[in-house]
C-alpha cells in the first residue's frame, strides 16, 4: 500500500483542488447556470444542512441495511456455489452453463420481472442486491479455485497432504486473492444495484434522495446525495482493501 504513503497523498491534492477552483470560479462568474452546475460551496452547504437535519443519516441508514442484507445473502450463496463449482469439474459441467445464462441477464433485466413477482418492497431490493453480489463472487471463486496451478497440487501430493490440508494450506491461500477480488466486485455491484433499485422503485434511501432532488430541479441536493453515495462506496471499498492486505499479509515477504 505504498501508493498511499504520505508523499502520495500530497501528490493527490493539486488536481482535484484545481478542478474545484475552476468549478467555483465558473459558478461565481456565471459561466454555467446554477441549475446545470451549482457551486461547490453551495453543494457543501446543502450537504451540511442535510447532515445536520438528520435527513441524510436516515436515508443512508435505510440504504446501508439494504446493501448489507443483500450483500450478505449474495456473498454466502456465492462463496458456497463458487467453491462447489471450482472444486468439482463434473458439477461445473452441469451447472455452469445455466449459471452463465442466468448471469447474462443483468440485474436490471430481472427488475421488471421481479417487480411483477414480488412487488416493490424490501424483498425486491434484497433479491436484486443479492443477485448483483452473487455473480462476481461465484465467477471469481470458481476461477480462483479451479485456477490453482497444477504444480502446487502436485507438490502437495508429494508431501502427502490430506484432502483438508490440501484445501486449507494450498488451494485456499492460492485462491484467496481472486476470491477476495470477487468479494470486492460483489460489494461494488451491490452498491450499484442498491442505487439503481432506489432510483427506480423506492420512496426512501439515498438513491431516492437523488431522484427527489432531480425532480425538484435541485441539483445541489442531487450532488450532495451523490457525494454521500461516493463517500460510502469509498469507505466500503477501503474497508475491503484493508481486509485484503490483512488476509494477504503472508505474501509480502515472499514478494
Amino acid at each position, binding site marked *: 500500500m505504498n501508493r498511499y504513503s504520505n508523499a502520495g497523498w500530497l501528490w493527490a491534492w493539486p488536481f482535484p483542488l484545481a478542478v474545484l477552483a475552476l468549478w467555483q470560479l465558473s459558478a461565481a462568474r456565471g459561466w454555467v447556470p446554477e441549475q*446545470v452546475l451549482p457551486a461547490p460551496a453551495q453543494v457543501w452547504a446543502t450537504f451540511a444542512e442535510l447532515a445536520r437535519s438528520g435527513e441524510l443519516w436516515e436515508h443512508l441508514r435505510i440504504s446501508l441495511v439494504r446493501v448489507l442484507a443483500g450483500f450478505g445473502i449474495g456473498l454466502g450463496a456465492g462463496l458456497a456455489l463458487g467453491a462447489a463449482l471450482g472444486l468439482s469439474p463434473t458439477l461445473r459441467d*452441469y451447472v455452469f452453463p445455466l449459471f452463465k445464462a442466468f448471469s447474462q441477464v*443483468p440485474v*436490471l433485466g430481472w427488475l421488471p420481472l421481479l417487480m411483477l413477482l414480488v412487488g416493490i418492497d424490501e424483498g425486491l431490493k434484497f433479491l436484486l442486491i443479492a443477485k448483483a453480489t452473487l455473480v462476481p463472487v461465484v465467477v471469481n471463486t470458481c476461477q480462483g479455485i479451479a485456477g490453482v496451478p497444477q504444480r502446487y497440487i502436485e507438490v502437495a501430493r508429494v508431501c502427502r497432504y490430506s484432502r483438508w490440508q490440501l484445501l486449507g494450506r494450498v488451494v485456499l491461500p492460492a485462491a484467496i486473492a481472486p476470491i477476495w477480488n470477487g468479494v470486492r466486485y460483489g460489494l461494488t455491484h451491490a452498491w450499484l444495484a442498491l442505487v439503481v433499485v432506489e432510483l*427506480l422503485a423506492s420512496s426512501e434511501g439515498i438513491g431516492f434522495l*437523488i431522484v427527489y432532488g*432531480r425532480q425538484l430541479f435541485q441539483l445541489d441536493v442531487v450532488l450532495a446525495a451523490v457525494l454521500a*453515495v*461516493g463517500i460510502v462506496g469509498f469507505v466500503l471499498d477501503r474497508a475491503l482493501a484493508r481486509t485484503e492486505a490483512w488476509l494477504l499479509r503472508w505474501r509480502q515477504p515472499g514478494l
Partner: protein
Amino acid sequence: MNTSHFVPRRLRGWVLPLLLLALWSWAAGALDSPLLVSPLAVWQRGLVQLAGGELWQALSASLWRDACGFVLGAGAGLAFGALLGASRGFERLVGPSFHTLKQISLFAWIPMLTMWFGLGEAAKIAFVALAAFFPVVLNTCEGLRGVPREWLEVARVHGFGRWQLLRRVIAPAAAPSIFTGLQLALIYTWLATLGAEYLLASGQGIGNTLIDGREQFQIDLVLFGVVVIGLVGFGLNSALAAVERRLLSWRERTVARY
C-alpha cells in the same frame, strides 16, 4: 453425481435447463396463477414480436446506443488507462481523484447527466460511455502495471527499441487484463443501456419493451424481454471472446517462436 457417467460431457450443460423448463411447463399448467405463464406463451409472444418487427426496432435502437457508448467509453478508457499505467507522475496526480470518482455508483450519474445532456439520446449514450470507461481504465492500468519487471529487463538486455518493447513485451503481457476490462465494459454497457432506457423512458429500446410489459402486466412480454436481454449479453460476450482468442493466439505463436 451418479448420472455423470451416463451423460456425455458436452450435453451436461443442458440437463438443468431442460429440467427447469419441464418443471415450469408443468407448474404453469397445474397452478392457475396469472403470474405463471407457460413457456409456450412466452415463445408465442416472442414470435409475434419477431413477426411484427417490434423486436428489431427496439433491439436495434438499444444495440446502436450500446455500441456508440462502448466505443466512446472504451476508447477514452484505453487512452486514460494507458497513461495511468505507464506514467508514475500522472498516476500520482490523477489516480486518487479517479479512484474517488469511480466510487460514485454508476447510476447516480444519470440524474446529473440528464441535467447536462437533456432527456434524449445524448444523455443515454453519455451514460453508456461512462459505464464502459471505468472498467477499461482500471484493467488497462493494471495490465500495464503488471508486466513483470524481469521481462522488461530481458527486453532491455536484448536491446529492444521502444516500439519493439511495446509490441513484443508490454502488449502481449497486458492483453489479458485489457481484455478483461473490455469484457467487463461490455457487461456494464449493456446494463447501462437498460438502465438508461428505464430511467429516461422516452424513445425506443428493449428496456422500454420491458417496462411497458410490466406496466401492462404482460408477464410473457417481460419474460421474452429477459430472454432477449440475456441472448444479447451472451452474443456480445461471445463476440469479444472470439476476438480475444484470435489476438491471444497471436500472442502464443509469438511466444512459441522464441
